[in-house]
């Protein structure tokens, strides 16, 4: 009757895992969870807010572009450094969708966007600007955007 949670792949290491359906506004749930963890490690309110926005962007990218059949996003949160003296947060937003080639994504420029029909294309740039470190791994099995923000 009681399912054993030890089987879960999130059981390795002491971290927090959130699994979300790809549905409207679910990015806000992810963002709130990130906020709780930022406050937990006493990150400044402004930095917490930057993390929240980056998480929102990574989630909506997965929702919009991944085409993942399971329609789920998994987010792994990890506190960096000592439990007693945390250095920051690492957040990995993961989908099992079609993937993409980050190198092939053109850097957006406002002058062009103002004239172009396609105003979109800012998510990755915003994530990069708000977080301290960003790493993207992507292949035909899906995408993981790993982001770090120090305290």
């Amino acid at each position: 009757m009681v399912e054993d949670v030890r089987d879960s792949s999130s059981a390795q290491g002491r971290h927090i895992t959130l699994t979300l359906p790809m549905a409207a506004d679910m990015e806000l749930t992810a963002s709130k969870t990130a906020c709780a963890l930022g406050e937990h490690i006493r990150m400044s309110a402004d930095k917490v807010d930057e993390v929240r926005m980056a998480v929102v962007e990574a989630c909506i990218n997965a929702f919009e572009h991944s085409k993942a059949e399971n329609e789920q996003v998994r987010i792994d949160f990890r506190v960096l450094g000592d439990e007693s003296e945390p250095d920051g947060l690492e957040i990995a937003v993961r989908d099992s969708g079609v993937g993409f080639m980050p190198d092939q994504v053109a850097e957006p420029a406002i002058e062009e966007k103002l004239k172009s029909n396609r105003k979109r294309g800012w998510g990755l740039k915003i994530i990069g600007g708000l977080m301290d470190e960003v790493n993207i791994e992507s292949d035909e099995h899906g995408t993981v955007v790993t982001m770090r923000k120090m305290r």
Partner: protein
Amino acid sequence: MTETLKVAVHERDGLTILRTEGYINNQGGEEIARVAYEQIDQGRRVLLLDLAGTKIVNSIGISILIEIIEKIMEIDGKLAFCCLTPTIEKTFNIMGLAQYAGIYPDESAAVAALAA
């Protein structure tokens, strides 16, 4: 399901102010655009977006704001912002938006700079 964004239109010393309340996502951006185009159709050339009631935005919402800036520049008008959270202001700077839209700390500062 979450509460959708609301936009209220105010006039202050001849300046038209759009005050938002809520999340600027796709729908939120569309709602702002709808109200902004209504004002432009009524002859307004300068609009101030007061985001005091908006604590969170996403890039889809912002790209709709870029559309408004484009439209308003075509008629030699101006879109300005005030009361941005530090993160929203930082995001606008990351995007280079600040070059094309005035950013003011509050309505009074915007009115002083923009009102006819």
